[in-house]
């Protein structure tokens, strides 16, 4: 008998499990049956943990039967992007260089999920070391879009978004450095939130662009995003860049979720929207109309430096990455080349063998930008442009509370369409990158489909540490629409 895969969100599921109406074991079994049915097509997971997941589910069910208190995600099957360290399974970052790396510690967010009694289904596929916008740069396997298996799921958190869309889990964690949660969320028709820089601990997140990386939730609904934030947000003494409770206390993101914001002013940037495909533009305009009907005032704003965001991003992120990835050298852990002739070859050959092309390209770019003679022209200049971009947001948020725009200029593109032209791939990050540079939160919510029935995402950006408001504003839109209720038919 096939177990039922309850068609509800995490909140609903958790409540039913906690009430004993649904058994976590049954749900977990159903999730794995879904995986067994479609994972060969989709390829969302690098590793799954069926035995351990069922054991954990059983434990949770037993606790509940015994009347013991259980956590906020009790019994809910969730997935984790494979660049977050776990003591169970390998942590590969979808790279050959870490294919057999077993972390002796859990990332802080993983500890939090475990403490909340979540059931971990597996580690999801991604672009290698989070470098990419399609998951095609994975060094280990391919993931396809559940809505159209000839297309990419987006990246770099493509495995996580595909898993949520394909019902291989009820929620997932992703990471976002230049759009890596939001863009794949928009391509897969799910919700993805990049929190404010410093809101969620980075301890245990394998670093790519340290001053840009953030971990965030990927879910089917805005409410689930809020629930996940309640679990993962907060100060971590192990992360010097995590914000302390005094400077920015963590609110209860669910508390006022369904309360609309009165006298809301939303900013839009028409020149920017004009740069996206017509279907995307239509969907964004549609979203604006929905807000207008709710009595929201729409303000046209300018972001004069927005167009310049990609350049400094690719200097800052790659510079930091070139340094962050220096540790993968075949000496203390990870892949080592066979028969190196000296210790230098341990480095040069292990890294050449273990890293994929895109990773090598970005390391080269970053090293070049930091090297003697070029530092001022590239890295230092990029940090100044970053300041200008943050300035644009500060000015904009004086006139509106949030900003609306597309997530991506296109919907999911075909596999292999952009692999040969790295610059073309980089340019598709145009809408998402600025939020990472400025450190502000941003969410992608489903807002329509194009003529090929491919999902389109609406991006909403808000000031630092205002995720509670951001989620409420996203919820206002979600309540009026049912895009988020649609699910892909996997062929």
């Amino acid at each position, binding site marked *: 008998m096939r177990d039922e895969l309850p068609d509800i969100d995490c909140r609903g599921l958790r409540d039913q499990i906690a009430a004993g109406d649904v058994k976590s074991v049954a749900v977990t079994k159903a999730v794995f049956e879904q995986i067994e049915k479609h994972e060969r097509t989709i390829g969302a997971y690098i590793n799954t943990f069926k035995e351990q997941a069922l054991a954990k589910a059983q434990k949770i069910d037993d606790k509940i039967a015994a009347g013991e208190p259980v956590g906020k995600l009790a019994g809910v099957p969730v997935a984790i992007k494979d*660049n*977050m*360290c776990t003591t169970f399974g390998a*942590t590969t*970052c979808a790279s050959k260089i*870490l294919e057999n*790396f077993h*972390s*002796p*510690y859990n*990332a802080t967010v993983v500890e939090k999920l475990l403490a909340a009694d979540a059931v971990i289904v597996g580690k999801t596929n991604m672009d290698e070391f989070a470098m990419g916008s399609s998951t095609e740069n994975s060094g280990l396997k391919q993931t396809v879009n559940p809505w159209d298996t000839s297309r990419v799921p987006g990246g770099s958190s493509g495995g996580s978004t595909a898993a949520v869309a394909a019902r291989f889990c009820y929620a997932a964690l992703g990471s976002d450095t230049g759009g890596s949660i939001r863009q794949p969320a928009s391509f897969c028709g799910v919700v993805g939130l990049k929190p404010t820089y410093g809101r969620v601990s*980075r*301890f*245990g*997140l*394998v*670093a790519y662009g*340290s*001053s840009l990386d953030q971990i965030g939730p990927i879910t089917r609904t805005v409410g689930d995003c809020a629930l996940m934030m309640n679990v993962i947000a907060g100060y971590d*003494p*192990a*992360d*010097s*860049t995590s914000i302390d409770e005094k400077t920015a206390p963590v609110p209860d993101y669910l508390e006022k979720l369904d309360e609309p914001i009165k006298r809301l002013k939303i900013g839009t940037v028409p020149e920017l929207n004009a740069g996206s495909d017509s279907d995307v533009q239509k969907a964004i305009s549609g979203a604006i109309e929905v807000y207008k009907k709710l009595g929201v005032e729409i303000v046209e704003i300018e972001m004069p430096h927005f167009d310049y965001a990609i350049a400094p991003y690719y200097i800052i992120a790659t*510079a*930091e990455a070139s*340094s962050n990835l*220096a*540790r993968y*050298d075949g*000496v*203390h*852990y990870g892949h080592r080349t066979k028969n190196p002739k000296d*210790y230098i070859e341990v*480095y040069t050959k292990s890294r050449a063998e273990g890293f994929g092309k895109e990773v090598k390209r970005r390391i080269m770019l970053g*090293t070049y930008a*930091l*090297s*003697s003679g070029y*530092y001022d022209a590239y*890295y230092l200049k990029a940090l100044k442009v970053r300041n200008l971009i943050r300035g644009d947001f500060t000015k904009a948020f004086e006139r509106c509370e949030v900003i609306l725009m597309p997530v991506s200029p296109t919907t999911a593109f075909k596999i292999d369409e952009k692999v040969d032209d790295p610059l073309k791939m980089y340019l598709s990050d145009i809408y998402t990158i600025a939020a990472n540079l400025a450190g502000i939160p941003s969410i992608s919510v489903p807002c329509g489909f194009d003529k090929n029935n491919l999902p389109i995402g609406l991006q909403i950006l808000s000031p630092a540490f205002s995720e509670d408001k951001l989620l409420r504003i996203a919820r206002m839109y979600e309540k009026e629409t049912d895009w988020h209720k649609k699910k892909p038919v996997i062929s």
Partner: protein
Amino acid sequence: MSELQYKVVVGLEIHVHLGTKTKMFCGCELSFGEEANSRVCPVCLGMPGVLPVMNKQAFEYAVLVAMALNCEVAKFTKWDRKGYYYPDLPKNYQISQYDLPLSRNGFIEIPLESGKTKRIGIIRAHLEEDAGKNLHATGNFSQVDLNRAGTPLLEIVTEPDMNSAAEVRALAEELQRIVRYLGVSEADMQKGHMRFEPNVNLVITKNGKEYKTPIVEVKNLNSFRALEKSIEYEIGRQAERFLETGEVMEMGNKSTHGWDDIKEATVLQREKEEAHDYRYFPEPDLVPVELTEQWLKDIKSRLCELPIKKQMRYVNEYKLSDYDAGVLTAERTTGEFFDEVVKAGGEPKRVCNLLTQVGLKLANEKGCSVAELGVKPDALAQLAKMIEAGTVSATASTVIFEKMVKAGKEPEIIAKEHNLIQKSDAGKLKKIVEQVLADNQKAVDDAKSGDKKSKKAMSFLLGQVMQKTKGQANPKVVSEILEKKLG
């Protein structure tokens, strides 16, 4: 090289291990001699996903030293990554400080002879983490131990103000003294707590013109002796080389030499194809530090009188010898105890002798400092006064001091109990002297004779009086009586 006239120019880079309990960025215990790789955690191992968190104690120790070195302490300081690949550097970058170090522009005074000092400029002092250790085992491989990786290091860079190997050694020893005084580092050379890298060259004067030899940086120096010897060696080698080749300092011809302790020579290290490009950039995982006035005041309150100041005070004010002043100031507790005893009224020279000849020996035996011997400053001052007044002889005072440590009693009581009070009553002593003279006619004649034998005879007679009084006669008084009687 007597034909060559030259000036020696040396600048020194020193790395000091700070004596915190844990590493700079993680809670691994700092210890010595443990099993390899037993004091390592994901952070100092540079595992994927880890992040550093700064040790507050290490930071404050660093600021304290900077203050003791008379540096300007930065109100705003930040961290940078210094990138290079090496097996003992797990992240393949070192977290250090580049353009905004925590302190700059200071100086250290080193003792020269006879109470003089020389000022050596300090360019900067900053905080960074140490790497692990590469061990070169037999065979074609090397071993890596990361126990030391992440140890807090204070890097100090001096101006090239030193002009001899002796001065360099003096600076190294002075720095060791300072960090020990401040309690921020054990500075034990055997444990590798201090490492030196001198930059040496010569300014040669020949036929009225000046020539600078290329700068040589010497590495792998783990003792003061190696430091001094390597500089002496370099001086000789550079002078010789100049005579041979006439090579002078140019852009890019600075070289690195390693010190071979067995050969007692510097050896040119394998030339690298290019100079290091460290690609410094701001450390994104650490936020900057801002030092408030209050915080600076707090740290400053932990400063103490520096050893050089104490030493100069002892030589110039108390007229103690360079050597004695050095002994008293070798450890902070000794000097501070000495100061307290002098404050309580002890005459400095007497107190000095008591401590250097007796006190330190006893403390060494007991394995503690002189302040922990159980003798109060007042009591020791009292003993010093007794010697000054002639109540006890210097010899007796040794015994008394030892007994004070054992029994914890006052010096007068001990002196009385053990019959160590000197007899200084001239009247009483006169009778004994007369007795001795009567019993030793030959000696008396010799003493009176005025030739070579008389000194010896005087000593003999004095000795006889001391014997008769069981050593309790005040030898000064006895000598005076003998002089009077024998002319």
